[in-house]
């Protein structure tokens, strides 16, 4: 049931990409997202596909596992595809009542669907290769220069760390409570929408209670260990940019350059 959710999960393999500085990976991912919006032809998508496949290969994450992460998003991708098919005006090739399928729509739909797929695959590559702690460390570090203009970098990062840390815990808890209620004859899977919504009460109430209890306990435990926010905190692991990071950024620069070249050619 809940096992299929792989978005945001860390998949340790110790590869070249895993060992990179989190800041490098965050910046590269941003560049990649921007790059995706430069793309305007299927030739460029070919280049993107090669690049992404190359990254997956280097990261040693099974392609099957990556594709599993796309599964929960297939509905969104299909809807995007369909909306684009019908909502774009142009040469009509087929009419369904008031709805028209156009050549341009087909093209646009496929295009957007690919963009979504690449977006998800690329960004999940970031979370799959970076442990949540490293990720938030990286974000905090990147946000630090913005502190003077009032961005609470450390607090934001801490909030993210905690949220990420508790996603699996909450999923586990949900699974456990669901099973416990199913053992008492609760039925989460059948019935109409109203009944299904009602059947969620036995799940949500204990879940919220336990989430609040956890939050409370965590706050207490942090206070007990004298947590006082980000000022003057030192870190056990300092982030350092190394040779591999430079190489990676260079590769990324080349990738973007190629995309721009294909676009303006």
């Amino acid at each position, binding site marked *: 049931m809940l096992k299929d959710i792989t978005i945001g999960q860390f*998949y*340790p393999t110790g590869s070249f990409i895993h060992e990179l500085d989190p800041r490098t990976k965050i910046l590269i991912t941003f560049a990649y997202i921007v790059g995706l919006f430069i793309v305007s032809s299927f030739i460029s998508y070919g280049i993107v596909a090669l690049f992404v496949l190359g990254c997956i290969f280097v990261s040693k994450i099974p392609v099957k*596992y990556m594709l599993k992460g796309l599964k929960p998003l297939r509905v969104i991708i299909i809807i995007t595809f369909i909306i684009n098919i019908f909502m774009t005006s142009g040469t009509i090739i087929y009419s369904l009542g008031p709805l028209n399928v156009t050549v341009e729509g087909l093209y646009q739909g496929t295009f957007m669907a690919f963009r979504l797929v690449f977006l998800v695959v690329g960004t999940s590559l970031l979370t799959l290769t970076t442990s949540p702690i490293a990720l938030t460390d990286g974000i905090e570090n990147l946000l630090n220069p913005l502190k003077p203009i009032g961005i609470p970098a450390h607090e934001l990062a801490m909030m993210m760390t905690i949220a990420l840390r508790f996603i699996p815990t909450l999923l586990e808890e949900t699974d456990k409570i669901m*099973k*416990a209620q199913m*053992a*008492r*004859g609760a039925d989460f899977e059948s019935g109409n929408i109203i009944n299904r919504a009602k059947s969620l009460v036995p*799940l949500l109430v*204990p879940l919220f209670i336990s989430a609040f209890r956890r939050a409370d306990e965590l706050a207490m435990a942090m206070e007990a260990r004298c947590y006082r926010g980000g000022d003057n905190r030192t870190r056990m692991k300092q982030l350092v940019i190394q040779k591999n990071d430079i190489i990676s950024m260079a590769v990324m620069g080349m990738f973007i350059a190629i995309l721009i070249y294909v676009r303006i050619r």
Partner: protein
Amino acid sequence: MSIKIENLTHIYNPSSPFETTALDNISFEVTEGEFIGLIGHTGSGKSTLIQHLNGLLKPTKGKILINQVDITSKDVKLQDIRKNVGLVFQYPEHQLFEETVYKDIAFGPANLGLNEEEIKARVVEAMDLVRLPFQELRDRSPFELSGGQRRRVAIAGVLAMKPNILILDEPTAGLDPKGRDEILEQIKSLHQQVQNTVILVSHSMEDIAKLVDRIIVMHKGKVSLIGKPTQVFKEVEVLESIGLGIPQITYLMKMLKENNIKLREDILTIEEAKAEIINWIRGNKNA
């Protein structure tokens, strides 16, 4: 109702880096009306095993037969199995959700489709079984009760479904000694009254030694020992090697025996041991 497990294997997160084999080719049988103690170290697969018995988890390999019906086959309705197999989870108080104790205990029976009267009768009975005063607590919120009381409410919630097979996953974890003994005592007396099949999961040999007909010892996803308590306790070396040990009183009797004091070996409780030792002293004096 009888239970038969054949070559049961369960792997969590198969083909991912988090793959764990929690159950490894397990087979055993439980006959109708038996009281079974399931014991094993943390992570030995006890909770995983019992969740298979009412279809909450699907086996990776193997079969589970409840009354000769294979519950892993597709035509079996899981609702029917769950009617017959009651499962009290580890820390069951975390599953409470209703506004009142009454409503929470009534949740299971209501899901069975019983009428109001029958539901009420069952709630009264279940609360009585776990020694909760019905009039006093029925309209209280379960969240303002003490931890031990909440545990009892949760157990009552499963008992009210009157399952033929009752499975309890460490029902006494985190309770004080008195609460622990009371709950175990009530489970035992219920078993004696209605002759249901009971599987009691525990960490503590002390707790289950005097209650159960047979003990199943699990280790790293396998069944390492199975048999009557006295038989199982003979395998001290095996038990110790997997970090379990035997009840202290059994140790004492064993040591006395090693010092050539002839006493019965099948002693599991302090009372029995006391009687036996006094007997032996008297016998010695007379000789």
